[in-house]
């Protein structure tokens, strides 16, 4: 195994982690502020991807597609918040799990109803396609670099939003004490809708960015959703910082696990068996990581006790 390959895999893990952060940030924000566990977050990711594919198909513009993804996911998020989600804040997690599970069913089949059963097409714009040569001779796809950059910009923007702006202050106040911000004269209902739409928009953006290199199809949100939950649980629910650390940890564990475990097992067993056992273990790796973190830190790495 060469060093170049190893570094390239680390970049892949980083890129995967950044992607997961976009999903996890919205999820953890919504949990931190409203105490809501939202299984339908993956559906917003899917809506972003479908909106992007649809608009890109009509206009041919990737930028317009991204804007459409943000707008569609935010709008869907705001709508769902007003119609359904706000009735769930006072409920226990069980009701929230069930209601948002029901929303997944409705969103998935609704999307299939509108767009049909076949996957949609969304491609990388020409100016971002193809590989670039990095220092050290690593060939790396430009688009994946762009995702890393975009994700880090969003992360920085999110930290700035929470640390510096009025809405950020309200969000932090809301995390600390829900009754308190009402007493301060903040319009809680509006704040919650905005936060939910913001989280939804982040998911939609992730869906559109990833849609260009994956398959835009019904059900694409659920695998990502489960990974995003793993991320925020590892990081500590409600913590944006935890989401970032957790996302990078999961991204790297998953990528490096898939890469290294079969190699490791090949040292002690036949190649065909090693790749089967190694891959089996690799697919369980992040869940093992999560279980380990929770056993030693029952509230995640940055969770509040």
């Amino acid at each position, binding site marked *: *195994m*060469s060093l*170049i*390959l190893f570094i*390239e*895999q680390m970049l*892949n*893990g980083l*890129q*995967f982690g950044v992607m997961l952060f976009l999903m996890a940030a919205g999820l953890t924000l919504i949990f931190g502020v409203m105490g809501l566990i939202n299984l339908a977050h993956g559906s917003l990711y899917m809506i972003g991807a479908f909106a992007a594919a649809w608009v890109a198909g009509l206009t041919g513009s990737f930028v317009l597609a991204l804007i459409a993804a943000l707008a569609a996911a935010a709008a869907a998020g705001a709508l769902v918040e007003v119609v359904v989600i706000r009735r769930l804040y006072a409920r226990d997690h069980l009701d929230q799990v069930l209601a948002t599970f029901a929303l997944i069913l409705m969103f*998935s*089949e609704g999307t*299939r109803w509108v767009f049909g*059963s*076949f*996957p*949609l*097409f969304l*491609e*990388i714009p020409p100016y971002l*396609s*193809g*590989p670039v040569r990095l220092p050290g001779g690593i*060939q790396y*796809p430009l*688009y*994946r670099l762009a995702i890393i950059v975009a994700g880090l910009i969003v992360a920085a923007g999110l930290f700035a939003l929470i640390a510096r702006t009025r809405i950020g202050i309200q969000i932090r106040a809301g995390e600390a004490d829900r009754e308190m911000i009402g007493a301060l004269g903040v319009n809680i209902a509006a704040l919650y809708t905005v936060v939910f739409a913001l989280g939804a928009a982040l998911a939609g953006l992730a869906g559109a960015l*990833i849609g*260009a*290199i*994956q*398959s*835009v*199809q*019904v*059900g*694409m949100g659920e*695998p*990502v959703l489960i990974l995003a939950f793993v991320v925020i649980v590892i990081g500590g629910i409600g913590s944006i910082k935890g989401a970032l650390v957790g996302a990078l940890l999961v991204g790297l564990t998953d*990528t490096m696990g*898939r*890469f290294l475990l*079969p190699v490791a097992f090949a040292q002690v067993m036949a*190649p*065909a068996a090693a*790749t*089967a056992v190694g*891959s*089996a273990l*690799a*697919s369980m790796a992040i869940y093992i990581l999560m279980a380990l973190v929770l056993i030693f830190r029952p509230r995640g790495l940055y969770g509040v006790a």
Partner: protein
Amino acid sequence: MIVRTLAMAGALSLAAVGAQAEIKVGMITTLSGGGAGLGIDVRDGFMLALEQSGRTDVTVVIEDDQQKPDIAVQLSDKMIQSEKVDVMTGIIWSNLAMAVVPGAVAQGKFYLSPNAGPSALAGQGCHPNYFNVAWQNDNLHEAAGAYANDAGYKNSFILAPNYPAGQDALTGYKRFFKGDLAGEIYTQLGQTDYAAEIAQIRASGADSVFFFLPGGMGISFLKQYADSGVGLPVVGPAFSFDQGILQAVGDAALGVVNTSQWSKDIDNPANVAFVASFQEKYGRLPSLYASQGFDTANLLLSALEVAEPSDADAFREALRAADFDSTRGDFAFGANHHPIQDIYVREVIKEGDIYTNKIIGVALKDHVDAYVGECKM
């Protein structure tokens, strides 16, 4: 969902024809969720053939298995116990077929498989009432291996999801490929990001890539592979290159070679008529799944001309004769009731705005599957 139009037409004609028994076909296929595209194609191809036959005494009961084995088993019980169907068909996925087929044929029903062909049902688990009209699962992978030899590849990197069909795929490729393996990877089922695998391909020094990643997994892989600039020739089975998927892959698929027992440009009258009529009726190009559904229905119809399913022995003989005009040209059953057929090599091209496949050669001629010897029937 029962297709009543045919049943009603059948009822009307009953008085004229006399005491002709109605034939009931149970179709369990995937019509909802992510894998619905395949089931819809099989269903549409099957119903098209039925409609063209003009036969009014065949009722088709269609149910959605949601791609879940336990639902498929429940529907199978319903078809057999409640609907009392004569013949069953429709299942797309091998694991669902393994759940349903042994039980159905053990209860004396005929099962015609329009897609899945698990090795267990071709070898030791073969059954006189089970007919596979599509392929044995390994066939297209074996053909890909044969093609790789013809193309002069010496060192292949091969990958597939870590589940039985994926393991069979790599086994099938290796059975025919004579070169070396630069790498062999099992990916996670349902995986959407292949950056780690593509990096390994790039570093492996391979001269070609074989992959089996059905459905959305294939779309993701091809898009990411094209963007990575690795540029090694890719070969795979048709499952990642069917008409429904190609449009979602776009330019990334252009020029990729794949193996299939069917292609829309196979030049025989049955196929030309099928492609034209499918396009006319449904407004889209048929996929190989649609052709398999169409052939399955025509096989059934050809047997019904000769015998009733109630006369099991005669009906079985009629099926075995396979006396119908297949969209694939020559078609015959082997001793284990799996097809003996040519497997073609296709290349992805663009016709106008539509991505589709063009035949560029034959990988295996009159190919018989590897398990026929294990079948004691």
